[in-house]
């Protein structure tokens, strides 16, 4: 199984903690697996909660008018890359 990069693991922890995913270990999340729908099975409330947590932790806001959102929310890897590129903190 492919290992998570340290930053991906950090985001995986944020994800598990923010969304109270009690039965999931951060290191078990597959980096390319879809976060929404199938895969981790998150819904749009989770997306909002995650966006608010990212803004608090990394100092930048995900905006709904960003047409890359579908790609950004596609997997842990895509999300981590997006945060790494845009973080202010």
């Amino acid at each position: 199984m492919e290992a998570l990069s340290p930053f991906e693991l950090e985001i995986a922890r944020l994800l598990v903690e923010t969304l109270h995913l009690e039965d999931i270990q951060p290191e078990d999340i597959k980096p390319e697996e879809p976060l929404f729908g199938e895969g981790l099975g998150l819904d749009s409330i989770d997306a909002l909660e995650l966006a608010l947590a990212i803004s608090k932790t990394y100092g930048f806001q995900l905006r709904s008018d960003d047409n890359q959102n579908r790609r950004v929310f596609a997997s842990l890897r895509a999300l981590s890359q997006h945060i790494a590129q845009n973080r202010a903190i």
Partner: protein
Amino acid sequence: MSGDWARLPERGNLLALRLIRWIALQVGRPVGRALLYPITLYFLATAAEARRGSRLYLRRALGRQPDWRDLFRHIHCFAATILDRVYFLTGGLDRFEIEIFGGQRILDQVASGQGCLLLGSHLGSFEALRVIGVNLRHLPIRILMNVEHNQAITGLLEALNPDLAGTVIPVSGPDTLLRVQESMEQGFLVGALGDRVVPGEKTVSCQFFGQEAAFPAGPLLLAALAECPVILFFGLYRGGNRYDVHFETLAERIVLEPRRRQEQIAGWVQRYADRLEHYARLAPYNWFNFYDYWREEAG
């Protein structure tokens, strides 16, 4: 309002919708209302699933075994509001007597400049509210709507009022609620319906007419995250040309403690279900969820 049609057989559904729209636009309301009787009869005879859903609901709401007259009245009430919807959308508000209860709360909310969640249901019609709010009073309202699932409604009805169509936030993808939250931050009142479960979204089990039913947790979780008030609305059809629109505050703010989050959100959704039951008792035939709401026959 719209999903009911999606649950009826696609063909009859589109046909009836087209027919009612045509009648409304071509022959006027009195003749249109007369034609609702054969249309209702047709539906009563052909839409078995809707009939079953109606029976299961009416048994609880009326507290007795419904007969065919109750079912007829139920479907007729729905058809009448669809017909009127066309008039609302095309600006024919004058012909209606619309009484608004608790409207000051909405005006106060707008004056405050703060956004809020306007939470409704498939009890009655939201169209009067939407048209008065957006077209007549120019209030900052946006409506969260599942456009993809309701293409027939969107194409046939929403197209009648482009101004209104522009206020719709379509449900699409994970960033939908981000958009809703941004709208609330900008001071918009965002309307959504809270009584239908979408597969894959979080639900809470509530007591509803004395039996457990699943309700979506999403709308009130959203309000908690956005730290905004929740105002309930119910647009009840009272027969003839009368509509009553009720507004009431469900919560000024929903605060969830991390450890008691589950239990607290369940409590709030139950309050919503209680108010929905209250208004459903006031206007039992306004219930427009024509399916097995309690999943009694799901096994």
